[in-house]
């Protein structure tokens, strides 16, 4: 909030801030308090910088020892002689599960947000919002347990159905002859979709709430049906917000660990068929391998964590920029 003229004591300490709202600007208490809160703000930047710096520092030795292409190699044997590891499979499955999650979650999340803002009875709308947000309160390990013990067991029919009717799309093709156990990227995608629903829908909800009342009522006054009003007034206004909400959701899905670790049966091999079991992501690889990792193995895991950090950073950066542009406009 910049409606208070702020004293410039820390940037220009030699100039006594005479014309300050709070009177004498150079009171020692003020200076101390300002310094402390400034330092607290700086922790954010320092922490982010430190994360990047230390992860890079500790991953360099492992990357030096690596004998294969780090970006394309699919297996993970950092502690063998010679050391061989690469993020090919990790990158592929991380992107696939997150994309599946996004494709499933975004339409539903937009629907939820529209329901809460424009369809539900007004008095119920806030509690309905809390209700959906409760999905965000379920810990990721519980999602993992549920995905493993309940969802995967009940997806067999869907997997076979998708194979029968959509097998030609290649991605839903199910080739093994045994009964599917559904510990597959597809199941992981469903779990992730449920997990990122609340974040996408709550941001979209806020954006839809901010649609200018005049535009909504103007559309209705012109005889638009409720859907036509939403299409012409609400959705165009909310486009940027919903886009960045979806990107933030994907960012969440990319780094999700335990839910994916428990659901995927780890197979380090790129496989286009998403309903076949197997797959491993950046995060699940770290959770699976940290215990048995030797010195180079730890460095290799840190290197893969660094990649995940960079990817999520880029994703969140994009989302932040879109939100900011919308705020300015």
């Amino acid at each position: 909030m910049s409606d208070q003229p702020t004293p410039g004591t820390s940037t220009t300490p030699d100039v006594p801030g005479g014309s300050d709202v709070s009177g004498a600007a150079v009171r020692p208490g003020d200076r101390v308090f300002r310094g402390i809160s400034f330092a607290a703000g700086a922790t954010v930047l320092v922490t982010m910088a430190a994360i990047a710096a230390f992860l890079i520092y500790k991953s360099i030795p492992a990357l030096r020892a690596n004998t294969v292409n780090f970006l394309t190699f699919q297996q993970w044997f950092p502690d063998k002689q010679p050391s061989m590891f690469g993020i090919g499979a990790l990158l592929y499955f991380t992107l696939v599960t997150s994309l599946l999650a996004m494709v499933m979650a975004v339409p539903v999340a937009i629907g939820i947000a529209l329901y809460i803002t424009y369809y539900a009875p007004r008095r119920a709308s806030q509690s309905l919002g809390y209700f959906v947000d409760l999905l965000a309160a379920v810990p990721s390990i519980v999602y993992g347990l549920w995905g493993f013990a309940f969802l995967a067991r009940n997806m067999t029919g869907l997997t076979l159905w998708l194979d029968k009717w959509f097998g030609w799309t290649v991605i839903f093709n199910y080739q093994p002859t045994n009964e599917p156990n559904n510990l597959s990227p597809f199941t992981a995608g469903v779990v992730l979709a449920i997990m990122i629903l609340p974040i996408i829908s709550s941001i979209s909800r806020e954006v839809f709430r901010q649609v200018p009342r005049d535009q909504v009522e103007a559309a209705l006054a012109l005889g638009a049906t409720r859907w036509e009003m939403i299409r012409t007034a609400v959705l165009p206004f909310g486009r940027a917000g919903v886009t960045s909400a979806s990107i933030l959701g994907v960012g969440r899905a990319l780094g999700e660990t335990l839910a994916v670790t428990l659901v995927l049966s780890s197979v380090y091999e790129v496989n286009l068929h998403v309903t076949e079991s197997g797959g491993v992501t950046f995060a699940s690889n770290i959770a699976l391998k940290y215990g048995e990792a030797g010195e180079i193995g730890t460095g290799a895991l840190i290197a893969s964590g660094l990649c995940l950090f960079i990817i999520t950073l880029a994703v969140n950066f994009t989302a932040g920029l879109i939100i900011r542009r919308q705020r300015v406009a």
Partner: protein
Amino acid sequence: MTTLERPAPTAPPRATLSGQKLPLYALPLLVVGVVVVTLLLFALTGFAGAAGFVVVTGLLYTAAQTALSFWVEGRRQAVDRLCTTLVYLAFLLAVLPLVLITWYTVRQGIGVLSREFLTTSMFRVDPEQPGGGIYHAIVGTLIQSLLATAIAAPLGILAAIYLVEYGGRRPFARAVSFFVDVMTGVPSIVAGLFVFTTWILILGFQKSGFAGSLALFILMLPIVIRSTEEMLKLVPADLREASYALGVPKWRTILKIVLPTALAGIVTGVMLGVARIAGETAPLLLLVGLNQKVEYNPFAGRIDQNPQASLPTLIYEQFGIAVGNTEAPAFQRAWGAALVLIIIIGLLNATARLIARFARVRG
């Protein structure tokens, strides 16, 4: 007499602006019809399964309703009805997993919940056999979350004060604000790896509850900053100006006027932050390790002492012991612990909402 012309009794012109509408009874009738048709379909073709029935009924109903509306009311109303149905369906689709997860967790977990389960540890209990408890993990989770909060809450609130009261539109403040957003998206496992790299690999400390708290702190800080910032922005500028006019220095104004006004909202934000980190698993897996005994000291982590346990890592550990066998006692124990964890987080959330409801920011 017969020459007197009467208007055709079939279509009396109605003085109304609205077009033809479906009568109120049409849609319930349609539901019944669709259910009957689906039942017949299932009986004739040999489809089976409750899930399939619900899906087919839903699809048939949506199609039938749209077609009927198109026929009676025209294209625009039909599209409107279709979209309304889809929006309702989307909401039901979100409620479904919530209900399924809650129901399944309660069903699986309620069996092992007992006084013993909550008040004893796993010390000298064979995890393959029933028995034992999760007291050590509850203690660990509470202490680690509290420690993380003790660091994150003051720092976060101060940072928010900087952003709202001092930062203005300075480049530094805008950078901080932007990176708070970015930091919110740092995956929990990356936060865990970072603390692992610095605290354990470089500084040479052991795994401990405190190391876990450090990672939780990183995850919690941006949440606290963001929510506190929103609350401070809600404090009316008049209050601050009145205080300045009385000659109160800025720092005292913030401490005595701004913070108390926004206190309830800030507490809510902090509680939601705690709820968010209490269920974090990934960083604790890397940093805390496992222990079967009760350990109150979060700094314990030497060779002679085991580090604290925590609920999420206990769930993961028991899941591992069960090796996918959903009937194993360890798996039941994992579900019981999951239920307890959900209850703790639910209580935190509910408290936060209550505080928010009963003590809004007052102007």
